[in-house]
């Protein structure tokens, strides 16, 4: 039997099962905490930090923190929203995210978060790093310019024996995802599709497939990310 516990998010009373991760507990209480690296049902990583909340006054990632009795969580405060905005902006300047030329535009979680937070221009200078495009795999194209190193592909995509197909190579700021060359021949169309779907940005693409959904009908064209979880709370528009 699960033990039910009580906690609050932005002062709202919430109920959850003890030990549930904060993002999942919030979701069950119809509160959206933005995530990028997190995949439901897969062991959380805490890689992207976008789900950062304040738990009893301390900053923590909601995807890796189990909920406990009496926790007071700050989620939609000015401070937390600005912090999340800065993380999204950092992603945009750190890589080469050319939305107009991207096959994933309109279905990209990173872009959708920028829309949600109404980011008009990042506060940080653009880095324009030099990165490679890798089309050696017969099924997929990897564009390292767009990769945010969330490790979703590594954690989710496995072969029939349950072994990893994707991995990290190199260290530090040079780190990038690779596909195990030995398993390249085992790479099915199904795995390729799943890889593209699991990638929150446009870093993994299925070859010879792109721009399949017309503008206006894509995932985030009409509704903001997370609106399936909660009714959209309009962030105060400070553009003009």
């Amino acid at each position, binding site marked *: 039997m699960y033990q039910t516990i009580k906690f609050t998010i932005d002062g709202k009373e919430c109920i959850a099962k003890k030990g549930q991760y904060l993002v999942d507990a919030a979701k069950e209480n119809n509160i959206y905490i933005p995530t990028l690296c997190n995949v439901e049902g897969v062991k959380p990583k805490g890689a992207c930090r976008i789900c950062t909340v304040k738990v009893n006054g301390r900053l923590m990632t909601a995807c890796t923190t189990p909920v406990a009795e009496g926790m007071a969580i700050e989620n939609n405060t000015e401070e937390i929203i600005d912090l999340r905005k800065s993380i999204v902006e950092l992603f945009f300047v750190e890589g080469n995210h*050319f939305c107009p030329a991207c096959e994933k*535009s309109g279905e990209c979680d990173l872009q959708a978060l920028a829309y949600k937070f109404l980011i008009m221009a990042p506060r940080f200078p653009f880095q324009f790093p030099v990165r490679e495009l890798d089309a050696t795999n017969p099924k997929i194209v990897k564009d390292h310019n767009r990769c945010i190193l969330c490790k979703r592909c590594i954690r989710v995509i496995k072969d029939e024996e349950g072994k990893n197909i994707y991995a990290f190579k190199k260290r530090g700021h040079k780190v990038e995802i690779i596909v195990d060359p030995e398993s390249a021949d085992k790479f099915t169309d199904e795995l390729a599709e799943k890889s593209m779907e699991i990638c929150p940005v446009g870093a993994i693409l299925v070859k010879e497939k792109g721009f399949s959904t017309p503008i206006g009908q894509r995932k985030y064209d009409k509704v903001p990310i997370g609106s399936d979880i909660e009714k959209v709370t309009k962030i105060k*528009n400070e553009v003009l």
Partner: protein
Amino acid sequence: MSKAVVATTSLAGCFGCHMSILDIDERILDLIEVVEFNKSPIDDIKKFTKKCDVGIIEGGCCNSENVHVLKDFRENCKILIALGECAIMGGLPAMRNGIPIKECLEEAYIGGPTVQGNDQKIVPNDPELPILLDKVYPCHEVIKIDYYLPGCPPRADLIWEALVALIKGEEMDLPYEVVKFD
């Protein structure tokens, strides 16, 4: 009430953002009731003839002439708006940022598949020509920009709402659908 004076320019852009300005359709008749254009490709005025209230900049900053125009706009306009992805983050022209200038010029004038008749392998180098910058820069990394309107191109409704809000001095209430990066 005197009309607000607006100037526009296209730097390293494709004029798509200017097309999107025209995409406000018949509302342009309402616009010219309250707005007067100065230096702009729309009326073909080449040089500032007076101080402007609003300057709209399309395209990123890719050469010495772009730097000059940006500084000119900053000096002559009270408010500057970066219009579109290229002005905000360099856009498609900035895809050259990872390629050395020499390679870019050689591809364009000497070795590229569409090059014809350049037997002497000349890369244009007249002193009259603007010099390419090492990278294509977002406008706000060269001069101060006051507002940003993203999109490729920015939706006509976004441009309209922004101009109306600026002229009336009101806050914008943007529908979700109008702020897009593509």
